[in-house]
């Protein structure tokens, strides 16, 4: 077996003990990108000399010599981010972003930049200035967005770990569609400095995308700048919401997630409680409105008359529509945030986790990203945001874990959410679930 097919933690371990040559591993990763990337378009740029320089200078950190991919959302010292778009609304330059520094200081080697949905504005990954990334499970299907490339890179075995960003589900959606474990940290816990919206966003966080929870813990520790210590997942009180997020989902998703919740309950010796979260639909819209308002920071209307024609029509039209959203709605969205933070804080006195499907259906077709749900046909974006916005709106951490396979063998995923700062519990719970299902889903490969 190639060293590249080892889990991230085993690559790091084998390099540390001298069993694996990190130079050979880097060459192998570059060769695999050359071989497999044309089919998935996950990696939009490599820079072998820069990667070799990173390896030569790599400190004895926990990720020394391990190749990783970083989303096209942060600057690197030798490359400005493009944000998956033909142009950005504000000028950006190359630089040392905090995720870059975190990876470098942990000894990791950035082997390439990951594709992403244009301007981070979609849950599918089907629009990008680089052309869309493709789902390694079925290259006619969406890989999920906006961290489409990082997820597709890991699922295709180009690297064992990648760094994404999550503003409204943008780590969790591609993790779900590609059968990976994706962690959205508590707001403010992970490296963000250097992001072009870092000073204004109250929604976006960086986070890891890996095959399983142990790898996400290791890569996440680098991004958090602290060890995400493993703890106990005993006696978990799991809250489920009988709402559209768990009811208006495809039957195969409902069944797999219910099975997984029961497995997690049994493994932890805990209990499942039904809880109410009446304003959940409003929280999704509030999250969208706040994200949209924040994206307008510093943008004069006149700037929108000079958008590049290379930007997609959807981006150009929506950028202009944002200017028409009523200020009263933005203020109300902030009030909904206050309300939901209190609601969620109250819920986390009763339960340790909230659990519902990450996305309501398996990855849709790239050509037409629509999903068939009990309520009818929706765009994937409409459907996906319903279960994802709460974590970004309130700041709580969330994780997406693979829990089954649906139509066409495509992955199904469960989302777990915990109280602020309990990111480690999510990883503990994800590991407990892996034990409960015999690691069946995290060890599946396309």
């Amino acid at each position, binding site marked *: 077996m190639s060293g590249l097919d080892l889990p991230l933690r085993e690559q790091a371990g084998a390099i540390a003990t001298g069993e694996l040559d990190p130079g050979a591993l880097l060459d192998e990763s570059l060769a695999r990108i050359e071989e497999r990337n044309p089919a998935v378009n996950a990696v939009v740029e490599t820079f072998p000399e820069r990667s070799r320089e990173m390896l030569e200078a790599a400190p004895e950190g926990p990720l020394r010599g391990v190749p990783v991919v970083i989303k096209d959302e942060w600057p690197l010292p030798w490359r400005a981010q493009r944000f998956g778009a033909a142009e950005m609304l504000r000028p950006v330059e190359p630089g040392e972003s905090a995720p870059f520094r975190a990876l470098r200081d942990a000894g990791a080697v950035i082997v390439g930049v990951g594709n992403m949905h244009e301007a981070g504005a979609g849950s599918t990954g089907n629009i990008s200035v680089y052309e869309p990334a493709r789902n390694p499970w079925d290259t006619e299907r969406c890989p999920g967005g906006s961290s489409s490339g990082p997820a597709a890179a890991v699922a295709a075995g180009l690297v064992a770990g990648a760094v994404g960003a999550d503003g409204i589900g943008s780590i969790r959606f591609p993790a779900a569609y590609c059968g990976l474990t994706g962690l959205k940290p*508590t*707001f*403010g*816990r992970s490296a963000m400095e250097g992001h072009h919206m870092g000073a204004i966003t*109250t929604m976006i966080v960086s986070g890891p995308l890996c095959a399983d929870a142990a790898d996400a813990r290791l890569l996440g520790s680098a991004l958090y700048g602290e060890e995400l210590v493993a703890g106990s997942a005993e006696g978990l009180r799991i809250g489920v919401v009988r709402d559209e997020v768990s009811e208006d989902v495809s039957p195969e998703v409902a069944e797999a997630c219910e099975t997984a919740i029961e497995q997690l309950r049994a493994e932890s010796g805990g209990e499942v409680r039904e809880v109410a979260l009446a*304003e959940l*639909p*409003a929280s999704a*819209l*509030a999250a969208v*409105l706040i994200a949209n308002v924040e994206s307008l920071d510093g943008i004069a*209307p*006149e700037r*929108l*008359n000079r958008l590049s024609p290379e930007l997609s*029509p*959807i981006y*150009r*039209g*929506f950028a*202009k*529509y944002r*200017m*028409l*959203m*009523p200020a*009263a*709605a933005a203020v*109300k*969205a*902030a*009030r*909904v*945030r*206050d*309300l939901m*933070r*209190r609601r969620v*804080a109250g819920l*986390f006195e009763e339960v340790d986790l909230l659990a519902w499907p990450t996305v309501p259906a398996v990855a849709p077709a790239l050509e037409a990203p629509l999903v068939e749900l009990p309520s009818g046909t929706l765009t994937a974006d*409409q459907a996906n945001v319903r279960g994802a916005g709460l974590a970004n709106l*309130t*700041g709580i951490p969330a994780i997406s874990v693979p829990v089954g396979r649906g139509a066409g063998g495509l992955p199904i995923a469960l989302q777990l959410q915990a*109280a*602020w*700062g309990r990111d480690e519990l999510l990883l503990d719970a994800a590991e407990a679930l892996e034990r409960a299902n015999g690691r069946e889903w995290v060890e599946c490969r396309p």
Partner: protein
Amino acid sequence: MEATDNYLVGGLAELGIEADEVEMGVIRVAHQLFWPAILELLALDVGEVGPEANPDLSKAP
């Protein structure tokens, strides 16, 4: 429909934002998707909970 177009076309014009036909098509679809939900949001009563002063999103309120 006329009111919608007045809002969209007039609003953009007031802001000095130009939009071609393709962009206007996107804007109309976006409005159809968002506006009902925005009206629902505006009607939502959140009076039971007062505003959180300077919320720290990394912590519970």
